[in-house]
């Protein structure tokens, strides 16, 4: 397991030295929260569905900045070749990168979610504990697909512009489930009503984490 910890430490260290990813994610998320405000009629209370949609558009669109960075930074100075030569297995490498992505997204969400409550009313605030669970489950799915596909786009000529085009069609189901569950939480629904969808979210994360473990080796060896 030491390879896993080494890569995790290296990436988080680099991020804490110069928090490029997290700052751009938070900034972009904040920006989106403000821009999406344009869609709401002036002076009206937003519905729980609109609120959930706005929150998750801000989170998913800002997360792409972090996802892009995790793999493309390994391209600089051909760090990827060094990593492949090192005795770290591909599985450890994938797990480490995925955890890094989850951590970066969590850090960004720690600012985006409170900003959302400030801008769009704290009537949703009582739903925070369940929202944390939903955020965690969604992050696993996003990070699994994002890690695999940022490895792919890092290997292409178009690089970072390509990831959103590949990433969003694949995560639309997860986004739609997440938005739905979040809006139910905002409405104050009991857990029994949406627990089956939480399992689907968990299953989504597991399936694509498994696929990532299986497929990342093929991608990065190219």
């Amino acid at each position: 397991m030491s390879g896993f910890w080494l890569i995790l430490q290296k990436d988080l260290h680099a991020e804490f030295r110069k928090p490029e990813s997290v700052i751009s994610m938070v900034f972009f998320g904040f920006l989106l929260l403000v821009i999406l405000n344009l869609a709401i009629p002036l002076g009206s209370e937003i519905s729980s569905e609109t609120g959930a949609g706005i929150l998750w558009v801000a989170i998913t669109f800002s997360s792409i900045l972090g996802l892009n960075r995790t793999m493309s930074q390994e391209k600089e100075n051909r760090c990827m070749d060094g990593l492949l030569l090192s005795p770290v297995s591909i599985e450890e490498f994938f797990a480490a990168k995925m955890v890094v992505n989850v951590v970066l997204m969590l850090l960004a969400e720690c600012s985006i979610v409170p900003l959302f409550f400030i801008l769009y009313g704290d009537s949703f605030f009582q739903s925070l504990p369940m929202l944390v669970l939903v955020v965690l489950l969604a992050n696993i799915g996003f990070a699994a697909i994002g890690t695999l596909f940022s490895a792919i786009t890092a290997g292409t000529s178009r690089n970072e512009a390509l990831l959103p085009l590949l990433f969003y069609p694949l995560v639309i189901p997860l986004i739609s489930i997440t938005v739905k569950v979040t809006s139910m939480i905002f409405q104050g629904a009991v857990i029994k009503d949406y627990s089956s969808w939480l399992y689907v979210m968990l299953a989504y994360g597991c399936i694509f984490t498994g696929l990532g473990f299986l497929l990342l080796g093929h991608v990065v060896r190219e």
Partner: protein
Amino acid sequence: MSIKKDQIVVIVAALLFCSAIYTVFVYAPTERVMGPIQKIFYFHLSSALVAFLSFFTAFVSGVLFLIRKDLKWDVVGVASVEIGLVFTTLVLITGVLWGRPVWNTWWTWDPRLTTSLILWFIYASYFILRSSVERQDKRAVFCAVLAIVGFVDVPIVFLSARLWRTIHPVVIRAGSIDMAPAMITTLLVSLGTFTLLWALLLYHRTRTLTMAGRVKNLEKRLDGGIL
């Protein structure tokens, strides 16, 4: 297959297609409620089946490529995604044309409609990915991965599409089991025809792509020799 045999198969497919059109328009009875517009259903469902077959083939060839690393499977993969995308587009277009008079709207966020639209996006991005990688073997690996992940996503897309909007539109099950026997026959004829058409397209597309690859390699070698 020799050229002659190829031609025979093409002629058979063309004849079969004519007979499919005949059964749809002449043999099949006109639906009582929806009227003649319901006849779009036969080709709509057949296109959907063919699109699904294509994506399944792309998935299988993606897996085979990653195991065997034989570029042959990459070519089969591209050919089937191309065909699948064309037929998904056809499904969407025929669906929209059918929905307008019957549901009185071009588009509703019905699970099946949403699913096909998202599928269209996933497999359209396949070609964007393809066009942005130069090296052949690398491109093949990336595309195989996308074909696999995309196909695994299909059931989840369908499941989540049920959640898409809370207000479910009246889902009209046009092809419910209590179809007239003549309608079932017609449906089977068009399904068969489309499947043959699909196999034919896949075979020819794979062949042309293989040849195009060979020509490209020859050109490269020729360039190297002259310069």
